[in-house]
């Protein structure tokens, strides 16, 4: 009961703080809106195409690239220009359509379509996969056309055109399922990207900032006053933990609700999402309480806390997917709890993951929560004494 009284007063004070309310309620919604509107394209790969005289087959493949929602296609006049664009990183991959491609295809020979990538990071691999699957889809049509012209009526060209027109009904299915693989390691676009990452981001950041309230309570002499009464230190710590957990949970719930209602975000498997949100709130509660015992003044906590929250958010993939950074940065990123939380959301939103598929991430987050809460408790016992 006394722990609840302590939690209530802590929450009341945070809620009464207008600045805190802005950071908790207004800012997340604005950022989700802006980031959601701006960050489209982590799953769209930039592909350059140079046609060295590939004829109709080449034009069809280029059109197929352009029809793929995963690819943004630019055409290049020369091989050198394409090479340069790949080298500069303007393109994820370059595709070279060799001369005489339609002739070779018509004969049933093997066509080598050149795919260029500068360095093998995961986004280039994903882009190459996306390109390959379009080529594979086109290959299937070529085979169908050859089959038709050999065993049925019409010329190869006529049948290839017919296979192309049938594509939406037949080949599309195979194409989709293959290209979907390439975007498995990033969140969907738009608000489905910004809402979960900003949930991870703001719950943690605001918890760190809220550490100021513990410092203030200590400086005001309130812990001393409480312990002069019939209140154990453990009760005070339980009360503060409850307060920080509740605040983190409210913050997360707000984003889930606003994301779902206003931005149409589907949060994936409800059980898995609930467990993930609760666990993340625990991580935030622990981090917030720890910040309340690490800093010396409320000003420090409310200045350094958010800065640390932003830095960890960047490292942990809240601002951009870790799939597009180098593997070293990705490994460093996974030292933050944020990366594991974003990974878990990616599984739930992009791969229809369930609680068992995010079990590894939940385990790591559980370990982070335990680490933060235990060290915060140990330090808070000293603060309260």
């Amino acid at each position, binding site marked *: *009961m*006394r722990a609840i*009284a*302590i939690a*209530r*007063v802590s929450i*009341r*004070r945070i809620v*009464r*703080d207008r600045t805190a309310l802005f950071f908790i309620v207004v800012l997340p919604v604005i950022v989700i809106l802006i980031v959601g509107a701006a960050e489209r394209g982590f799953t769209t790969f930039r592909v350059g195409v140079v046609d060295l005289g590939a004829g109709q087959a080449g034009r069809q493949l280029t059109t197929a690239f352009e029809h793929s929602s995963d690819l943004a296609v630019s055409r290049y006049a020369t091989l050198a220009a394409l090479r340069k664009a790949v080298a500069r990183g303007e393109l994820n991959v370059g595709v070279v359509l060799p001369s005489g491609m339609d002739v070779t295809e018509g004969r049933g020979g093997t066509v080598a379509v050149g795919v260029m990538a500068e360095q093998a990071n995961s986004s280039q691999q994903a882009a190459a996969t996306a390109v390959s699957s379009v080529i594979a889809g086109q290959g299937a049509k070529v085979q169908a056309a050859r089959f038709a012209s050999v065993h049925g009526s019409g010329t190869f060209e006529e049948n290839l055109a017919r296979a192309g027109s049938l594509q939406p009904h037949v080949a599309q299915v195979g194409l989709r399922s293959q290209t979907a693989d390439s975007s498995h390691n990033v969140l969907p676009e738009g608000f489905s990207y910004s809402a979960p990452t900003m949930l991870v981001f703001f719950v943690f950041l605001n918890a760190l900032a809220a550490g100021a309230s513990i410092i203030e*309570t200590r400086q*005001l*002499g*309130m812990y*001393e*006053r*409480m*312990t*002069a*009464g*019939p*209140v*154990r230190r453990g009760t005070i710590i339980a009360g503060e933990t409850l307060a920080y957990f509740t605040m983190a949970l409210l913050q997360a719930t707000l984003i889930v609700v606003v994301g779902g209602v206003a931005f149409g975000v589907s949060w994936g498997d409800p059980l898995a999402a609930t467990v993930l949100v609760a666990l993340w709130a625990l991580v935030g509660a622990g981090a917030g309480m720890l910040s309340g015992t690490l800093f010396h003044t409320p000003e420090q906590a409310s200045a350094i806390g958010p800065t640390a929250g932003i830095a960890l958010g960047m490292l942990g993939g809240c601002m951009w997917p870790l799939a597009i950074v180098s593997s070293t940065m990705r490994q460093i990123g996974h030292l933050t709890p944020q990366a594991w939380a974003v990974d878990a959301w990616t599984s739930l939103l992009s791969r229809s993951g369930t609680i068992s598929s995010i079990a590894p991430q939940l385990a790591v987050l559980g370990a982070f929560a335990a680490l933060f809460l235990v060290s915060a408790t140990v330090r808070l016992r000293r603060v309260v004494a």
Partner: protein
Amino acid sequence: MSLRADSVLRVRWWLSFTSDGARCRGPAAGNGDLVPIVSTGNTAQVPDEPVLRCAELTRRFGERLAVDDVSFSLDAGEIYGLLGPNGAGKTTTIKMVCGLLEPDGGTITIGGRPAAGDLSVKSLVGYVPQDVALYSDLTARENLAFLGRLYRLHGALLEERVSEALELTDLSDRAGDRVDSFSGGMKRRLNMAAGLLNHPVLLVLDEPTVGVDPQSRHAILERVQTFGRGGMAVLYTTHYMEEAERVCDRVGIVDRGRLVAEGTRRELVARLGQRDRIELGAAGDLERLAAAVRTVPGVESADTADHAVHLVAEDGRRILPAILEAAERAEVALNSVDVVEPDLEAVFLHLTGTALRE
């Protein structure tokens, strides 16, 4: 006696003052219809035991002995003052009594029961810390309601206690205002109100009037006296001699961690015998003046504080001319000479050799 014309502006003789025996113990005038809090009584109170007994309390901070072998006790309805300068160890003593600091040695019993780590004993005590401890962004009522809940008060009883505490500290009309809009004196009164919520058997007040306007100070002192009359035991610390004289039934004089003397005002003053306290106000080198008057036969101790030299002398009125001569020899121009009837300040100076500073 040869005095320069301007050297003595006035010589005051304080002959009339009320003796402490005459201190009013009846119902306070102007109390309205407020009923002073009467401790609801602790069923666990061991009969014939004092409400608070401190025995041989000792506490160190590193090398510094903050409290050194301090023993005292106090009964229900008694107001006991710890009087001493800053750093004497008053707060340290009080924090040990309230279970906020572990003593290095000695024992504390409250109502006959050892205080250490016993939550039910803690709920008998009301603690009013030296520094105001309140949430400045909450209202007065919210602060009190929160603190009351820590004493397991709730519902109608909680509301009643909160209203009562606000009324006792004259804050009822500001109950809904945030504490950060309060004046220093109002904060102090609310700080005190928070110590009354649980109807304590023992009320502990640590310098409750520091930095308070005269009106609030008067109100606080008045109220504390009412609590004593209501049967509460009050432990009161201060470095203001007048406060100790005014509100306390008994005073313990503390200096550098030691309780150097204890008793009623009359008992303490009696220790002075025929001694008087003399205050020499001067503008010049006070240390030199103090050194000069120490050489006068009959002067026991002299110390500088608050732009004056304070001295205790055997039969001060008789040796006053010699003191004035010494001042002249030291070439320090006096601008006032007060011979003060024996008071606690004189006792303090007599016992410790130092003057109580503001």
